[in-house]
């Protein structure tokens, strides 16, 4: 029995004496070193990715919210609220009283619109701005050359 067992044991030893291929050792070494390298990497090495992501998010939010037209600008404003202080417009507005009564020298400023101011203002203000003080004159020509009809429309007061 002993000799049989010695034979078995010797064969067991022989079987396990076969060399293990180097590739298996190399694989273990590579796995261990890779894990150790990953553990030793400083924490701030990877933080640039988070910083980049935060910067990109901030830029995106700025583009969305800052680039948008404010709601107040999208709704046409009441011209009186939009331009609460317009001393020149009030002065230029015709009152129907004489220049002497108004205490100012009569000028053509009241009848001549200031194109500079209107062209500079936004379209919404031009549409609903103060009424043009000049009377509207419509000339109607009839078949009879002796008859010409003038239609004069004037605005009085507000």
């Amino acid at each position, binding site marked *: 029995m002993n000799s049989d067992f010695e034979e078995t044991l010797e064969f067991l030893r022989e079987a396990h004496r076969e060399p293990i291929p180097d590739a298996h050792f190399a694989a*273990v070494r590579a796995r261990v070193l890779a894990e150790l390298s990953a553990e030793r990497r400083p924490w701030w090495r990877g933080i640039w990715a988070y910083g980049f992501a935060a910067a990109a998010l901030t830029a995106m939010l700025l583009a969305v919210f800052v680039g948008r037209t404010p709601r107040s600008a999208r709704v046409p404003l009441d011209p009186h609220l939009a331009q609460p202080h317009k001393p020149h417009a009030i002065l230029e507005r015709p009152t129907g009283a004489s220049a002497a009564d108004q205490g100012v020298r009569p000028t053509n400023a009241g009848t001549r619109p200031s194109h500079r101011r209107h062209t500079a203002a936004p379209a919404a203000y031009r549409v609903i701005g103060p009424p043009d003080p000049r009377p509207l004159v419509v000339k109607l020509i009839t078949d009879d050359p002796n008859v010409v009809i003038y239609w004069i429309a004037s605005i009085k007061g507000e």
Partner: protein
Amino acid sequence: MAAVAAMDGPDERRDTIAAARAGDLGAFELLMRRHERLVLATALRLTGNMADAQDISQEVFLRLYKNLGKVQAVNALPAWLYRVTVNACHDLRRRRPASEPESSACDLVAGGMDPQTSLTQAERRRVLEMSLRILPEKERAALVLRDLEGLSTEEVARVLGSSEATVRSQISKARAKVHDFVERYFSPRERRRT
């Protein structure tokens, strides 16, 4: 390999361990090269397959790196590695029981051809591997360390944390079981007749 040869002296080994402890990965790689056969071969004999043995080797070397400060004497390192390897194999077995059913020698004979004609080296090896696999963990570890790794009974006892008497008993039982397994495999007809 030349670098490994260069660290054969005790002073060089001590310096290498000190450098690895200081964080030198190159020095730690030298340590691994020095002891990788011990760890991988033991794990392979205990687990029976290369994938598990590689997983265990990786775990053992990672534990070594974390515990380099505890390894004081250079000569104590192999015993420490054996102990950690055996424990890692036990842990693996508990976490992941062997997937292959542990067949008996008679089952192998019944499912195969006539043992007398298939007595090839490969088959004998397969039977021996199977005989190791049927052993309880402690007995298998004792047999592998004593008979295959060539450690003394005292060293095996130190690695396994048992007394020498216990180890002698475990080795004796393991040898008897392996022998019985092989005997039953190669002469089942005679056994069945008796």
